[in-house]
């Protein structure tokens, strides 16, 4: 491929690409994101290749692996164009039928369609599925249309036109002005206005400046940046080059965690392709602007998502935060002005340049504009990535898009903002999603993790879980974080084990204050959030654990017991056989009893007891009823009486 040397050449090349592509030729887009690959997308893809070959359709149909569209719950999934037919949970065995039916005969394979669980209705097209229908997929929507390994695919959907526009129709100040006007706020957690950050760097006197992509996504259960970087790497690269132009940088870094191997491959490939096409390097598109981009792989530390720790790690030292009374956009990487933005923030930049700030600000609330991708996980019917306009009520995300709580269970809370975010209770489900709105509710936007919890989740245990994560991930430099959250974890663990004492809540509050006020970086300052927000909304659970040694969610192992109701037990011996600890005493026609001293509280008996009996139950905070007498244990069956 020869370099593209001007905006005109870029448009000519794009037109020639489009003219080679027949929009009516069937195209099978198979999600090749990490989620679908894990559930077998590679095998499905291989099956398509083989089947197309076998049926001699090589010239009539295209098949390609694409980025992740977000509906990970139902992977491997694919979309067949031009009809936009969406098949879910496709197995290699389904492939011959798809090829002969849908591709050749234009018939739908009914059983692979989405079925609405509440109405039983089937959805043929991707856009008819409620999970997608209620989203606003400005960023992630194109993922399924492009092969992330093909720069031509990105160009075909208008890629690098924003870069061309910025370089030839706008001054750096105008680019900056547009981003400022859009009020794009950082998608990585802080929510700092990107335009203001850029402006600070641009105005800093030091001539050498840097732009950096923070792709060190480390929140448990969050994978939106992975999907963007894996699925549409050029969009991030394009945003980064535009940012470099706006602030006057000539060097960019992509700090990506090593645990994202596919993202690392795809972004490296994208950089190589962009260099070949002349979107990177010297004299980009003949504009005299030059920029190079390098990839740095992180070594797996959560704290390196913190801006100063990330920069310290980029410099080749241990990833520890440094005090930041002077912002890193003024004194950052190697002491120079550095604009660090999250993957999703950068991905928004080409859209803002192409479509304008006014287009961007039509979505959102007063203070939070645009769309936001959330990774919706936990006790939710539709697990996956959802992109919604800011300002959407939480309950719409959980019910309309997420499909509610599975198994008829009751919603309890949604945890947002990653490990140092907070839990939002049912009473606040009408809350509009936005940076300030979530912070006011005691949680935060964070990078967009959203973990749904139901009635079986113990909120004290949830706080303990996140504190445990943070204790592990603290860098250990400052006392309030290293020592403070270590003690918080100890106290919370004691409470969940029934060893809570009067005064524990107050001590936790003191430690929280110390961490919030005195910790060095955002990790430590926000570490008490899981405790504080659960205390705020679920104080009664803390008190039940401490005062009554009772776990209201019946979840904390040390505080519960499994018992068999003698009235309901039919002596079917299922639980007795399945119990891995041989803790169930029973036998044919002998009502079963759980021997508490042997029980490991694994819950197997509870799960296997047939629902029509429902004889096993969990109790907490009350004594285990004494076993019934030997005589009363024998069941005399009606049928056997005669």
């Amino acid at each position, binding site marked *: 491929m020869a370099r593209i040397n001007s905006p005109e050449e870029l448009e000519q090349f794009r037109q020639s690409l489009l003219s080679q592509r027949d929009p009516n030729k069937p195209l099978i887009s198979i999600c090749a994101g990490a989620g679908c690959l894990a559930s077998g997308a590679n095998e499905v893809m291989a099956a398509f290749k083989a089947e197309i070959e076998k049926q001699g359709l090589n010239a009539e149909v295209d098949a390609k692996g694409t980025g992740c569209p977000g509906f990970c719950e139902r992977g491997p999934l694919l979309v067949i164009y031009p009809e936009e037919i969406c098949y879910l949970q496709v197995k290699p065995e389904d492939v011959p039928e798809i090829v002969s039916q849908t591709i050749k005969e234009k018939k739908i394979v009914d059983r692979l369609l989405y079925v609405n669980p509440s109405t039983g209705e089937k959805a043929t097209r991707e856009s008819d599925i409620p999970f997608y229908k209620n989203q606003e997929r400005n960023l992630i929507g194109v993922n399924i249309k492009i092969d992330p390994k093909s720069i031509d695919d990105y160009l075909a959907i208008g890629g690098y036109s924003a870069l061309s526009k910025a370089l030839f129709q706008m001054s750096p100040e105008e680019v900056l002005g547009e981003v400022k006007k859009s009020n794009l706020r950082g998608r990585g957690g802080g929510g700092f206005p990107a335009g203001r950050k850029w402006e600070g760097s641009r105005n800093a006197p030091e001539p050498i400046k840097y732009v950096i992509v923070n792709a060190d996504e480390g929140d448990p259960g969050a994978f939106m940046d992975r999907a963007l970087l894996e699925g549409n790497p050029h969009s991030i690269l394009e945003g980064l080059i535009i940012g470099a132009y706006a602030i006057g940088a000539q060097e960019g870094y992509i700090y990506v965690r090593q645990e994202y191997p596919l993202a690392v491959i795809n972004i490296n490939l994208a950089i190589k392709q962009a260099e070949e096409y002349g979107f990177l390097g010297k004299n980009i598109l003949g504009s005299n602007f030059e920029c190079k981009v390098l990839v740095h792989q992180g070594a797996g530390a959560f704290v390196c998502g913190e801006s100063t720790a990330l920069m310290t790690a980029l410099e080749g030292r241990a990833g520890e935060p440094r005090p930041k009374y002077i912002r890193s956009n003024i004194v950052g990487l190697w002491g120079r002005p550095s604009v660090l933005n999250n993957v999703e923030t950068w991905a928004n930049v080409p859209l803002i340049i192409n479509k304008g700030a006014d287009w961007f600000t039509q979505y959102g609330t007063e203070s939070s504009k645009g769309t936001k991708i959330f990774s919706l996980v936990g006790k939710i019917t539709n697990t996956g990535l959802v992109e919604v306009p800011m300002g959407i009520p939480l309950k719409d995300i959980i019910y309309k898009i997420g499909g509610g709580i599975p198994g008829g269970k009751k919603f309890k809370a949604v945890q947002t903002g990653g490990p140092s975010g907070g839990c939002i209770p049912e009473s606040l489900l009408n809350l509009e999603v936005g940076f300030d709105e979530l912070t006011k509710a005691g949680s935060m936007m964070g990078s967009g993790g959203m973990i749904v919890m139901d009635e079986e989740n113990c909120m004290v245990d949830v706080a303990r879980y996140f504190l445990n994560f943070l204790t592990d991930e603290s860098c250990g430099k*400052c006392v309030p974080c290293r020592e403070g959250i270590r003690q918080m974890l100890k106290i919370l663990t004691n409470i969940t084990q029934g060893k809570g004492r009067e005064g524990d809540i107050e001590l936790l509050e003191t430690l929280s204050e*110390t961490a919030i*006020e005195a910790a060095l970086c955002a990790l430590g300052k926000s570490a008490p959030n899981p405790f504080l927000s659960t205390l705020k909304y679920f104080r009664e659970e803390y008190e039940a654990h401490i005062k009554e040694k009772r776990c209201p969610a019946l979840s904390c192992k040390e505080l519960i017991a499994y018992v068999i109701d003698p009235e309901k037990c039919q002596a079917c011996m299922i639980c007795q056989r399945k119990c891995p600890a041989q803790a169930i005493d029973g036998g044919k026609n002998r009502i079963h009893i759980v021997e508490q001293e042997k029980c490991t509280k694994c819950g197997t008996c509870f799960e296997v007891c047939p629902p029509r009996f429902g004889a096993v139950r969990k109790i907490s905070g009350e004594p285990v009823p004494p076993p019934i007498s030997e005589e009363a244990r024998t069941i005399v069956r009606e049928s056997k009486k005669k």
Partner: protein
Amino acid sequence: MSEILFEIDGKEVKATDGMTILEVARKAGIHIPTLCYDEKLEPYGACRLCIVEVESRGWTRLAVACVYPAEKNIIVRTRSEKVDRIRKTIIELLLAHAPDAFDLLDLAKEYGADRNRFEKEPSFCIHCGLCVRYCAEVKKKNAVGFVDRGTRREISFVPEIASKECWNCKECFPLCPTEALQAAYVLVEALAFPHTAFEK
């Protein structure tokens, strides 16, 4: 160099560009407690004991004096109810590791800290990093460093370097606020080089 005027505890103080609040306070004879600070070393900001209240344009916030740059017209308060409460908690957290360290016990007396507030895990080291940074910044030897992170973090001598350098130096010993370093060194020495240790 321009002169920066501001106030600490009601006293007008003068600073030059690049000075921190702590440096200015020390020069003016105002005491702010520290554990990880040493004037020969780069400010580190880890123990957080030097936390103070900084009022700037009507806004009050907490900042650590050892890294906060002196600024025109700010008002610094080195003691307040909140500052004292946080210092007390920090001291109590550290006493769990070094319950008999003299420096900590003195601070505990001043701030009313309870030596037994948290369950003891005597590791002696409070991770101030003075030894690590002194060896790196002043001696430029890197014979002692941190290993691991978070609550598993420890100081450790690098045997290859320590066996050559430490014997005749030991300049980091007196810096250690809990005297843990000497104990660690003697222990490591005894385990790693039993013969030389006995010959001494």
